[in-house]
């Protein structure tokens, strides 16, 4: 069980006291975050930085006759909370009425959450952290003698508490931890200098990838980029490895978010119930996976998160709605005031080897820039990758662009790999997409 920390319970009592004095004309919701952590950087075999993190933030939403005001502060004294509440109330007296505004009226959380499997506090000595971080970078230098410089290796840990309370009796609270270890190195050969990184990210310290492996993967990635060549423009199949494929799925999730839909600012506004992926593609949301980055008991409004099918046999089954956007669209709220864990799967072939499925193409290992237009789906981004032919990687390519339209890219998916990346909240394998335009020389 995650019982309230001393700090959280003090703040809870203060907030309840303030709520008991608050006029019944207004509805108020209090969102509290407490976070403590540490970042340690080592570079060139030496300790470089230690940053201690220690944040408290309270955000208050007030609804007054269907008008909304928001105010936040990081000063949690009783006096400051009262001032913040009155600031939010004042704003709510100036904004305009909108009948969809208000606190959630159903499926909201009323008690502290049980064990979600995302809270694993651990005491690690500073010396041990520094050694771990140094060994990560050292492994990168040992792996390949073309690794000649580094931006260092970095370890972070944080312990977080989230609490939500409102004037209708809603109460939710949970704790979580997060650990990460990363390494950024530079490979150098002749005139070519390339940088790449690798990282591990978990809820439990002991589940972090081994420090030496993180360093070695960073080294292999950086040195594999050396002596990259330009390539001629073409339309060809493209493989997006998991860490890049997540951004395409992120574009889908933004496009079906209730706020994009009611604002009519999405390329997917008319897609509900339509086949937007090939039939073998399934995408689900599950808020309760132990040790997962996206696990959460309730969303930003305090509505219970739900397990759901988003894409079933290629078809879009639901938009992702929070309390406000659901009311706006006259639909039922799906608890998506947050996006939890998203899993992308192929129902076709669980062990497909994507590189062997097409004669030749490009593996895109890095994308740059913000060229996804979510209003039209038009897509154009800078990229780095590897040219492959006959099932083998031939050489790295640089200075290229990847362009298409998201609607077409979703439709042109040939297969999804089983090489799932579990480090973030979007869990997908590599995605092979046909007919993508590569801009080059």
């Amino acid at each position, binding site marked *: 069980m995650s019982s309230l920390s001393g700090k959280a319970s003090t703040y809870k009592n203060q907030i309840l006291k303030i709520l008991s004095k608050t006029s019944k004309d207004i509805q108020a919701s209090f969102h509290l975050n407490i976070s403590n952590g540490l970042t340690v950087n080592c570079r060139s075999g*030496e*300790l470089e*930085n*230690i*940053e*201690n*993190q*220690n*944040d*408290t933030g309270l955000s208050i939403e007030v609804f007054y006759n269907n008008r*909304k*005001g*928001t*105010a*936040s*502060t*990081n*000063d949690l004294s009783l006096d400051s909370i009262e001032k*913040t509440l009155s600031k939010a109330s*004042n*704003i709510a007296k*100036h*904004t*305009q*009425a*909108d009948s969809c505004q208000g606190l959630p009226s159903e499926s909201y959380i009323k008690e502290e959450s049980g064990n979600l499997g995302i809270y694993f506090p651990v005491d690690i000595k500073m010396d041990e952290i520094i050694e771990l971080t140094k060994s990560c970078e050292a492994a990168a230098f040992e792996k390949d003698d073309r690794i000649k*410089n580094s*931006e260092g290796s970095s370890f972070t840990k944080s312990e977080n508490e989230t609490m939500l309370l409102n004037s209708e009796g809603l109460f939710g609270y949970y704790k979580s931890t997060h650990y990460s270890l990363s390494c950024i190195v530079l490979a150098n050969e002749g005139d*070519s*200098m*390339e*940088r790449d990184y690798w990282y591990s990210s978990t809820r439990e310290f002991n589940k972090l990838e081994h420090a030496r492996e993180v360093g070695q993967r960073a080294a292999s990635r950086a040195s594999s980029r050396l002596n990259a060549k330009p390539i*001629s*423009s073409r*339309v060809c199949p493209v493989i997006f490895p998991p860490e890049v494929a997540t951004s395409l799925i992120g574009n889908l999730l933004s496009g079906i978010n209730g706020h994009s839909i009611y*604002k*009519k*600012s999405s390329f997917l506004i008319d897609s509900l119930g339509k086949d937007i992926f090939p039939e073998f593609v399934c995408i689900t949301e599950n808020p309760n996976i132990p040790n997962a980055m996206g696990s959460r008991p309730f969303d930003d409004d305090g509505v219970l998160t739900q397990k759901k099918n988003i894409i079933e046999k290629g078809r879009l089954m639901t938009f992702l709605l929070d309390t406000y956007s659901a009311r706006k669209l006259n639909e039922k709220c799906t608890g998506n005031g947050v996006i939890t864990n998203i899993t992308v799967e192929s129902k076709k072939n669980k062990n497909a080897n994507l590189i062997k499925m097409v004669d030749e193409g490009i593996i895109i290992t890095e994308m*740059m*820039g*913000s*060229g996804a*237009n979510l*209003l*039209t789906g*038009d897509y*154009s*981004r*800078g*990229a*780095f990758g590897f040219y492959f032919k006959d099932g083998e990687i031939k050489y790295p390519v*640089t*200075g*290229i*662009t990847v*362009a*298409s339209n998201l609607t077409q890219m979703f439709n042109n998916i040939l297969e999804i790999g089983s090489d799932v990346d579990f480090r973030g909240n979007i869990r997908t394998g590599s995605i092979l997409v046909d007919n993508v*335009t590569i*801009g080059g*020389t």
Partner: protein
Amino acid sequence: MKSIIETILAHNEISESKISQILSCSCPKGIDYSDVYFEYSSSESWSIEDGIVKNGTSIIDSGVGIRSISGEKTGFAYSNTFGLDNLLSAAKMSRSIASFGKEEPFSIRDKVNFKKLYSSSSPLEKVSDTVKVEFLKKIDSYIRKKDNLVDQVIVNLAASHTSMLVVNSDGMRAQDDRPLVRFNVMVILKKGKRRERGSAGGGGRFHYDEIFADEFSNKFADEAIRQARVNLDAVEAKAGMTTVVLGPGWPGVLLHEAIGHGLEGDFNRKKTSAYSNLIGQKVASSNCTIVDDGTISSRRGSLSVDDEGSPTEETVLIENGILKGYMQDKLNAKLMKTKSTGNGRRESYAHLPMPRMTNTFMMAGPDDPEEIISSVKNGIYAVNFSGGQVDITNGQFVFTASEAYLIENRKITSPIKGMTLIGNGPEILKKVSMIGNDLKLDDGVGTCGKDGQSVPVGVGQPTLKIDEITVGGTKV
């Protein structure tokens, strides 16, 4: 008159002698340098969408950041509260970066002298909330009346005020109050099944009254509609290498990405930049002179004094194609045996300072913009961009056009869909063959991200011709 931060310190009984006590603690024998950064920042934003002013937000963030430097090592801790005990405990965490000796008595010797580039007062307090709401409603109805294809209008109004005080172990103290306002318009037009967006905005270190003036706000509203109109007729662009002419002003994001980041001191000290060790060498066409200037009055990227208490400067980065200097903060300047250029910036008290740009732009050249366009047989004319990114190590950078046209037979013809341009900084700067006489700075909406920290910046340039760059079109 006392600044907000000084009033807060007085209220918390943090006198000069208490600050000295904190610095004695954060900078004992064995620590080279330490600073204590006090900040109180308030901000607000208001927006209208669907014709309703739906929400207003107010944010107060305040605290104290303490860092201790020993050689290349930095220890850092911060506190959300101003109590002496919390500050001393942050100072102890911070100094633990290195082995240290005895605490020594410390005293504040002097104030940093600098020229004020903007008003000290807060833009948040001068205007009532009713006036802000009425302004948003006025702009919304102005846009809806102006064009019958309007499908959605979103207008944002935001202001902030940061009151800071930094005291360092050299005995210097600097205090600055910084206003910042910003206004953004986004319009979606719908014609048949096609829907396209246009956006525009402006701002700077001044007050709301400048934004509320019709000639300011209507200009951006008109601009957003115009852009969306253009995009309704945009056709697909061809992928591959071509000649590109960039319009003046905001397209200067090219310089920010292609060269600016690569000339920040930290990357060059660590030799991770494609521009490391190139001082005195030719890195751009000989007609290119590029500066970073934090001293321009009232601009979004300007600062009277940086976050480490160094007055900002006009720093020449490239002069007639030759690399002249880097942008430095104190740590990197010291390690590279040079002086800070006033580029030490931090997002807030909870972040470490690092070398960051202020207003980065290319000086005007000799060419007539029309002649630049007519010198191109076939190519692209790009006038608006939505952002960019760079890999400072290999020099690859991208920037994404949101308004561009074909140049066919030396004339601007059809608009083309938004696309990303990719190039290599050191190579592209050598392919700048013509520079216009029409230097323009951007309208004041730029934000730069580095290592997870965002700071307001400015960019600018005259019309430029790049002989060859890769364009991310969809046609082959």
